[in-house]
């Protein structure tokens, strides 16, 4: 199957769409697909994966326009995957979802 990844965006980097071919291994998650692409095509792809059970929501993406938790949502042929919200984008589909955003420590501001 094929998926489309909306990439870029870190520090104003150009946003583009890349298409990748991934194997069909039965019911598998969007996260597995992102990991497959990062490992087999392009190691620079930023994606987030933590609990793999839909709890932490760190991996949240927009898939075919819908907000989905990537680790528990099956990937489907032709799926377009993009960051959940462009303004929160760190890189590619990685977004800042910290629950302590107000109390951030900065290495550069202080040292």
């Amino acid at each position, binding site marked *: 199957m094929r998926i489309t990844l909306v990439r870029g965006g*870190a*520090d104003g980097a150009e946003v583009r769409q890349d298409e990748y071919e991934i194997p069909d*291994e*039965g*019911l*598998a*998650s969007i996260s*597995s697909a992102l990991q497959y692409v*990062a*490992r087999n095509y*392009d*190691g*620079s*792809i*930023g*994606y987030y*994966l*933590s*609990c*793999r*059970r*839909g*709890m*932490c*929501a*760190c991996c949240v993406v927009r898939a075919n326009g819908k907000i989905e*938790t990537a*680790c*528990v949502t*099956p990937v489907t042929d032709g799926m377009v995957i993009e960051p959940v919200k462009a303004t929160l984008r*760190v*890189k*590619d589909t*990685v977004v*800042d*979802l*910290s*629950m*302590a955003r*107000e*109390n*951030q*420590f*900065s*290495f*550069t501001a*202080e*040292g």
Partner: protein
Amino acid sequence: MTNVDVIVVGSGAAGLVAAEEAAKHGLNVVLLTKGQVGRSGATATITGDISVDGKTIRNYLGLRGNEGDSDRDFYDDTMTGGAYLNQSALVQSMISHVGEELKPLLEAGLKVAGIGHAPGHRFPRGVLISGMQLLQILTRRAVAAGARFRDEFYVTDVLRNADGVTGIAGIDLRTGEAHSLAAKTVILATGGSAMIHPFRTAPEELVGDGYRMALRAGAELIDMEMVQFLPCCLVNPPLWRGIQFPWIIGPQSSTRAWLLNRYGERFMARYDPERMEMSTRDKISIACVREVQEGRGGPGGGVFMSWAHLPHDILEFLPKWYGKPLLRETWHWEGFDFRPLIERIKQGYAVEVAPASHFNMGGVRIDAECGTAVPGLLACGEIAGGVHGANRLSGNACSQFLVQGRIAGRSAAQFASSAPMPEIDAADWKEKLAEVEAPLLASDGVQPHTLASQIQDIANRTLNVVRNGSNMAQGLREIRALRAGEVTRMFSASKDRRYNRNWIDAQEVQSAALTVEAIAMSAVIREESRGAHYRDDFREQKPEFHHNTVVSLKDGTLQTRRVAVAGNETK
């Protein structure tokens, strides 16, 4: 150069409680996590229990506890479950303080879904909660106490000088810049290393970072051979792989599901005829793997779990009994929709299950104040070893992180209020920086993720539920060859520093490789079976092995030694 009083590494429950406590003492506290605050770490994966003795549940927390229970009974069950390798002082501290940690959380709105009765506990002691809600409350409290945070900062090393801790080094994953930060104390709360196994329940980030940092800083590890596998996790499809839902709607909720081999035999009769499927996690895991090894398993490398002998009503009522909102009547559990699976079960189909790597009983060797052998270095939560001995009972991980987080925060505050601010040794920082950046600067070499898979393969073949001497010796040879060879030649194909997965993988491989070697070395010298450590070449528990295994790193080489179990009666 900036400095702080206390650095906490890791944002699971243990780290958040430690940060809150240290900040409450008026100290300058920074919590660093390679994940995201309030979301990362194994705490987020809990839809489970905090163990408290029944009398405290009833009389102190005001919930439905069994008054016949006592802290002494809870202690005895924990020690029995741990095959008496537990550090007695750590167990006592956990049992006597968990109630006072839980009460303010309940007052802050933590919802209790019920009181569970899990195998190994003689009384219902499992206060059922949601880990994500717990994280929200703990984050709020730590923020209110004045702690500061930095998400997506991967601490790779503890820095030190001849006197003790001087700070940390790590990578800001968002910018890709390496930084050091001086501190009087560092609290490690980075969790375990379930990710060294290909089939596991824990989150991706648990690769053993803290074990590597602690060893390299000069601290010791204890009981590393004791790795808990959670039985009855789903084998297929890939989307559900490693998820313990069958365990939840089986033994964990006291529902009498049957474990069957390919001949339909209820094989637990051969391993624990009295408790059968209600046996402890270690015994069920061993039984399941032995059935497979002896040729009686299913097509996916597991065994079968069946509810077909039960009337459908019992399953239908389960969400009501086991506790909303953790198990919902729509059969949504955690992030999954398990309606298709429940429908299949009701049609009489069995589900193929296998044990998944779940928890490290072993870890950084701490004293009752969460201190290590290194002045200024503390550890709490799953990364800290010794409290669970050879096997952990359900719910005791949560009791551990709440109590130890508090103790570590308090100890750090005490240490930091009298210690002078150390200065980072320039040579130490330069050396660590060069190591951290090497994969990024190398122009060719080995892809880190291929090594991650190789390490998982070694652990899966040689350090699984059923072990034996020749297998482990082979595993040890392989991991040492890997560490001396490919691990030194890792490179990041992508040179983009920002959120670079190749580069992150390279750091994680270092942690996983050293952890696997520490586990293998500890396991190979324990020539008996005890708790989670089961060997088919030494199937019995032996009194002469009633000791703890300690690992240290001397001149770049791991060493093991045996030490007497502190403060508990010989069994």
